[in-house]
């Protein structure tokens, strides 16, 4: 079983809002200094799912991440959890790609690796929550995809997947190769052991650029982006409180009803 997992570094979603600021002019988040990015929690679930499959029936796990400042750090984390190999995709041409560009880079990398049975991704990245990269990789590779999986089992070369849907869950069976994105309902992600961290620190992680994986320059980078960020800001929530009174509960209720009806939907 050859499993490929795609992971992304994001600003730690557990950080309190006071820790970072937004540059409204450049439409950029200014992360707090000294606080490293973390593996997007949904992607960590994908690594966990891969490890569970490997434990159940053997195989090899290769982790991919598109290189930003913290790529190396989250790659080491995935390796420490138990992944076998990793590749960092790093090239100036990839910078400022949107989901489409990133999916192109990852799909090209998978093609270069050649051998694979299963690709796992998080259901969405915890920073932009777009949730398109997994499906796009499947599209580019022309393989089936199931998104928001809660559990994955592999039985005699057939994937059995329970996926979260709006009204409950659905169970799918599909052949390999396929791509699956993982949802938080899957459960707990393991914490790396000390020796896991030590063996991860010793592994070589190659960096591949545009020429290594043969990306199409017209499909990556800011110029190729299909999505355009219009405005980035920290939302301000306002709470107002108004006391409704009356000489008795009936009058208070009548006034309250009036006020509610006066609010336009």
């Amino acid at each position, binding site marked *: 079983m050859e499993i490929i997992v795609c992971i992304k570094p994001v600003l730690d979603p557990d950080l309190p809002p006071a820790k970072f600021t937004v540059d409204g002019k450049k439409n950029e988040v200014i992360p707090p200094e*000294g606080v490293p990015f973390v593996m997007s929690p949904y992607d960590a679930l994908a690594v966990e799912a891969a490890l569970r499959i490997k434990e159940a029936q053997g195989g090899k796990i290769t982790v991919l991440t598109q290189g930003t400042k913290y790529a190396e750090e989250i790659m080491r984390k995935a390796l420490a959890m138990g992944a076998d190999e990793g590749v960092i995709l790093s090239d100036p041409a990839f910078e400022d790609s949107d989901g489409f560009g990133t999916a192109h880079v990852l799909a090209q990398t998978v093609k270069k690796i050649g051998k694979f049975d299963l690709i796992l991704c998080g259901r969405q990245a915890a920073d932009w929550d777009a949730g398109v990269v997994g499906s796009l990789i499947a599209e580019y590779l022309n393989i089936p995809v199931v998104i928001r999986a809660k559990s994955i089992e592999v039985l005699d070369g057939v994937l059995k997947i329970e996926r979260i849907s709006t009204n409950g869950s659905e169970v799918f069976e599909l052949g390999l190769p396929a791509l699956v994105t993982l949802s938080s309902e899957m459960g707990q992600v393991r914490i790396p052991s000390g020796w896991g961290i030590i063996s991860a620190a010793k592994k070589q992680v190659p960096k591949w650029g545009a020429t290594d994986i043969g990306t199409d320059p017209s499909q990556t980078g800011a110029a190729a982006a299909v999505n355009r960020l219009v405005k980035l800001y920290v939302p301000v929530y306002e709470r107002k409180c108004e006391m409704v009174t009356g000489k008795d509960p009936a009058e208070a209720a009548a006034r309250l009803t009036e006020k509610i009806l006066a609010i336009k939907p």
Partner: protein
Amino acid sequence: MEKFDAIVVGAGPAGCAAAYTMAKAGLTVLVLERGKYTGAKNMWGGAFFGPVMGEIFPEFRKEAPVERFINRHIISFMTKEDCLSIDFKSYHGDEGSSPGFIMLRAKFDRWMSTKVEQAGAILATGLEVTDFIFDGSRVAGVKVGTEEFPGNVVILTDGANSLLAKKAGLRDDYKAPDLKQGVKEIIKLPREVIEDRFGVSGSEGVVMEFVGACTKGLPGGGFIYTNQESLSVGVVVQLSALLENNVKASDLIEDFKEHPSVRPLIRNGETVEYSAHLIPVSGVAMMPRLYSGGILVAGDAAAMVLGTGLILEGANLAMAAGIAAGNTVIGAKALNDFSALALSQYESLLKESFVMKDLQTFRRAPHFLENPRIYNDYPEWTCAMMRGIFNSTGKARRNILEVVKESMKGKIGLMQLVGDTLKARKAI
């Protein structure tokens, strides 16, 4: 199972300096840090003094995340309503050449630990060392829960109140007066505002120390340090005094921020971080045994903190001790001898360096600084004297000597003053 040449417990200044020294010499080094990432839980005031940083990292002036270089020191005595300050500015050398500088731990620890990794050491975060592996009475590695990590030498740099030093049999329990508690807020302000309020420009910075009302007269002090775009504002107080007087350090910092001489400095600032930490302050009197078979201890874990009341230095001593520990292990490795006798070289190195010399010179300071008059009567007296000198009452003025005498009345006896001055001469 792989056995490391050295295992370093804690990636603060002491641990990083030790690990860097050894890794550069080609030793296999494992650094275990309990924080989720380096610097995650660490704090300090932020003023680093002396040349030791440049000795280990010659490139630090260009690379390290220095907030500001110190060219202005302000020492203030405060009562509830007054504040008398000595303001020392120094413009020797170019901007950025000052031997003192201000840094934030989150950034500094990360920079330093990256250096350690680049030198070849393995840094593993999120792992809290809980115990040792013993070989007879000799330490032969560490345990993190049920996981074991064998090593020829363990360097303990786990900071103040090291429980592991106790477990290794290197120290007894501390007494409450041996520790101070520090609390600190980081208050965000625009760079231009900081430069205007503190009279600095470019990379210049100020350290301000306060004595008196900021600790409600308890042994300790307050501080304000300028970062690039924030202020570090804090209070350090003797732990036993807090307990005895039922005072909370968190309340003291609130009062400190409200003091009329502090409030305008932090006005409109936003508190973005709050932290608290212990400081070992009794110096040589509380120092553990520094080595034993297979183990060395350095930095706060060995109480290497110098406090004279006017300065608080720990990070530079920690780094110097870390370097000495590292060099000791390099020597031990060459002879493949990690016995207590071989590791005793560490103590010799420390005695030759400023670490033990300074701690010896100021060995009486901790006791001297417990004198409550320093935090009550003297600020009251000096401020009353200044009020007397500057206050114009419409009546005939008295000469200055009379003002001084008057201000001492009921506060300080002449003999006390002479006695305390003599003690101060010996202690600091």
